C-alpha cells in the first residue's frame, strides 16, 4: 500500500519539512471550506476589538496544513489513523505578507507489531512553536 519499510526507520529521523504560506486569501478559503466564519479570521477591526494583535489563522487550518507533511511522506491521507494537536500560540496573518508556517515531521515512535509509526510534527511561526503535542499516527 505504500513504499515505506518500517524496519528502516529510526526514532528522531526527519521525514519531511515544508513551508506553508498562509495569506488572508488562505484564511477566507479555509473559512468557506470549513464553515468557520468567526470574524477574527478575516476582520482586523473585530480582531482588535477582542484584544488580539491581528487577524489570526484558524487553529484548524494550521492543524490541517501541518499534517500534510506526514501525508506527503506516506502518500495517502487515509493512512493517518489518529491525529492530535494542542493549540499553544496564535499565528498572526499580516494582510500583505501573510504568515510563514514551517512544519517539520520526525519519527516519534515505532510500533512494528501493528505497523503504526507516530510522527511528531513541529509547526513554527516566527521562531515560535504554535502547536504542542502534535502527533500523527500513521498506519503503514
Amino acid at each position, binding site marked *: 500500500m505504500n513504499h515505506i519499510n518500517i524496519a528502516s526507520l529510526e526514532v528522531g529521523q526527519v521525514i519531511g519539512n515544508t513551508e506553508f504560506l498562509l495569506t488572508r486569501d488562505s484564511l477566507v478559503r479555509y473559512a*468557506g471550506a470549513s464553515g468557520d466564519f468567526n470574524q477574527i479570521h478575516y476582520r482586523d477591526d473585530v480582531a482588535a476589538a477582542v484584544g488580539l494583535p491581528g487577524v489570526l489563522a484558524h487553529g484548524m487550518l494550521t492543524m490541517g496544513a501541518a*499534517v*500534510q507533511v506526514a501525508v506527503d511522506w506516506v502518500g495517502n491521507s487515509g493512512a493517518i489513523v489518529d491525529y492530535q494537536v494542542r*493549540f499553544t500560540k496564535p499565528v498572526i496573518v499580516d494582510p500583505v505578507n501573510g504568515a510563514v508556517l514551517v512544519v517539520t515531521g520526525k519519527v516519534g515512535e515505532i510500533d512494528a507489531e501493528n505497523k503504526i509509526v507516530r510522527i511528531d510534527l513541529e509547526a513554527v511561526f516566527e521562531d515560535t512553536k504554535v502547536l504542542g503535542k502534535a502527533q500523527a499516527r500513521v498506519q503503514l
Partner: protein
Amino acid sequence: MVNPNVQGKKYPATDPYLVGREKIREFAHAVKSTNAMNLDVFAAQAAGYTDVIAPPTFAVVIQERSLATVLADPEAEIDFSRVVHGDQRFIHARPIVAGDELVSELEVASVKSLGAHSMVTFETKIYDVSKELVCTVISTLVVRGDE
C-alpha cells in the same frame, strides 16, 4: 463559566451530512493538500477507495454541526465570544469517502474549572448510514472567564 451540570450530557444525532466529492476537493485545497487521494478519483480508486477520501481533519466540518447545537443550548452557558480552541484530536476507524452520509453524536465529556476559566471537552462520534463508527473527534475549548 460553563455550567458543570452539562458534564455527561448527550446531544441528539445531527441530520445526515452527504459528503460531496467537490467539497472534499475544496477542503483539501484549503488545507494545502496536494495528496492525490483527496483530489483524483482514479488514484483513490486505484488505492482501493470508492471515491476521493477526505483529509484527516475534514471531520471537523461534521463535528461543527453538533458543536453548534451545544453552543446554542442555554443550559450549557457557553459564551462563544470567549471561546479559545484548546486542543483537537481525530481518531479514524476509516477515512471519510465522497458519497458518505454521516451523522454526529456529541457528548460533553468533561467540564473543568481553571481559575476564572472553564475547560470543556467534547467527544463526538461520527457514524455512517450503516451505523458503523467512522471517526471519534475530541475537542477541548477554553472559555475565558472574567480576569
